[in-house]
């Protein structure tokens, strides 16, 4: 008997009565102003939210928020200030410590300020290796809670994806909150 068979046999003999799958019998919370809640909760987690003004371009937002950024990696056509096309890079290690990555996200989650990113660039290293990360999502794409988030079509078909709710952080030294543990030091979500 191999290990799989051994484990399955033991499980079959655990004497546990079958239990039905529970139905969702309650209504999850809704927010009067999803966008506002999203922004507040993202900022509470150390992230930054920017509502793009009419007529403003992504390049202008980048210049406004990250004037110091010299190396900017993005595959987005609108980001003409990009200095690196991350998909042309062979070795993902070259994307580590670029000043700014600009990427597309799918939608936001109001209850926790998270954004779903389904990997659409070649190396996911950019999401975690960039010193600052800017995530662009459509302004109207914000759901109330994780219940809705996980059943969205964007969370159905992907190879790798991630809910990101702010900059990388740790409190492992005496519970003092520090941003930039290993991943981005700052995260900005652009609502456009």
């Amino acid at each position, binding site marked *: 008997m*191999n*290990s799989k068979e*051994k*484990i*399955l046999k*033991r*499980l*079959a*003999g*655990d*004497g*546990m009565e079958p*239990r039905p*799958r*529970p139905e*969702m*019998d*309650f*209504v999850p*919370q809704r927010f009067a102003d999803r966008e506002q809640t999203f922004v507040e*909760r993202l900022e509470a*987690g150390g992230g930054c939210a920017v509502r793009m003004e009419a007529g403003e371009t992504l390049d202008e937002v980048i210049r406004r928020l990250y004037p110091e950024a010299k190396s900017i990696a993005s595959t987005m056509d609108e980001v003409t200030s990009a200095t690196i096309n991350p998909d042309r890079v062979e070795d*993902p*290690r070259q994307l*580590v*410590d670029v000043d700014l990555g600009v990427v597309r996200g799918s939608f936001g989650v109001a*209850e926790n*300020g*998270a954004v779903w990113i389904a990997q659409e660039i070649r190396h*996911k*290293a950019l999401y*975690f*290796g960039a010193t600052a990360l800017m995530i662009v999502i459509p302004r109207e794409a914000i759901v109330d*809670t*994780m*219940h809705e988030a*996980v059943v969205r079509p964007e*969370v159905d078909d*992907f*190879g*790798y*994806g*991630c*809910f*990101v*709710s*702010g900059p*990388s*952080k*740790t409190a*492992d*030294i*005496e*519970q*003092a909150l*520090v941003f*930039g*543990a*290993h*991943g981005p030091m700052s995260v900005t979500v652009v609502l456009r």
Partner: protein
Amino acid sequence: MSTHSKAAKRFVADAERLAWHDRALYAVREKRDRMMATVPEWEDLRRMASEIKLHTLSRLGDYLCEFERNATANGMQVHWAADAAEMNETVWELIRRHGGRRLVKSKSMLAEECGMTPYLEARGVETVESDLGERIMQLLHMPPSHIVLPAIAVRREEVGALFEREMGTEPGNSDPTYLTHAARRALRPKFLEADVSMTGVNFAVASTGALAVCTNEGNADLGTSFANLHIAIMGIEKVIPDMEALGVFTRLLARSGTGQPVTTYTSLYRRPAPGCEIHVILVDNGRSEWLADEAHRNMLKCLRCGACMNTCPVYRRSGGYSYSYFIPGPLGINLGMLRSPKRYHGNVSACSLCYSCSNVCPAMIDLGEQIYEWRQRLDTLGLADPMKKAAVKGLDFVMGGRRRFYGGIAMGRLAEKLPRAVLENGLNPWSTPGRAMPPFAPRSFNAWWKKEMKR
């Protein structure tokens, strides 16, 4: 005296550290309470989490097979390991075949459980912990003292001194931001040079064959971004039915554990990137047997959030190293007993039966009630403390009759007149070093009641 109270002596001796530890963890507990208050359906969520877990456990074999089918269809490779030895061998075989020498790993309690790191190190695989707290503990050559906050018993000055030795940071600088960023720089090359990455698994979704990994630091995801072999290890109880279930659990996990609305990163690994491999190891190591123990199978509902530790008055005031099992606190007391009552029964007395752990558990595990049940079993297991047994027998006799009871109280009043040195020594099981025996009330409740009733 139990193994726990003996071991706690060292921790309790440092009053300042103890007070800090107690306060810091209670602050996390309070953050959890504030998070809970923002979710009106909190109790519904807990009930749902508990029921989904029970449902899954009752069909665990089916769900594991469904996960295997879907993960395989997604291009992952799934392995089964009956015990710790088989898990370690499987990991080693994968690394060896890959020609790997440098492993970067994110936090996994299962790796601790199986003694994986020393096993791999003995075979020449450099194994680097990438979670900051875990890295601190690894450099200190000490195990974590909390499952979510591994370095909670280490003070900033100690981290400063450690990093000065290991990373050449400025002498005397123990600023957390400075030290964290020093570790970030020091770990960068470890991430980039690793040829194998390893993560734990928070949830394995059967219906989609996806793995969910939750971190705040992003270390798991940075780790899996370079090496082309990713090994994910998980206990068999980590499988969940579907994405709806994931929605429920992700709402509870971080709110309960660290008081955040969600972890910074909730990553889903579904298909390996081109040219890369993902291997998932499903590990039993006792779990299928625990499931057969009706009184304690609830332990397998655990999400490993750490809330029970943060709230436990005994854990907060005695620290993780006072428990003899590698997982401390309410969770560890119970898991230790499932692992081996003979080796770990010394922990069951580390509990005041306040049941706070049961009340904060997001999966509604009856942790406190189970500890009580283990205590009841000690005698049949032949593990009851003979001193305590004698004391309880004595008390039973004294309390069994009215005259004997009041006689006993009178004796107690007399005993109180004895010199402190006689009362507060190790022979009196109710005495605690550093704490005076409380005085008896001037008159018994019964006497007071009778008098008041007359008035």
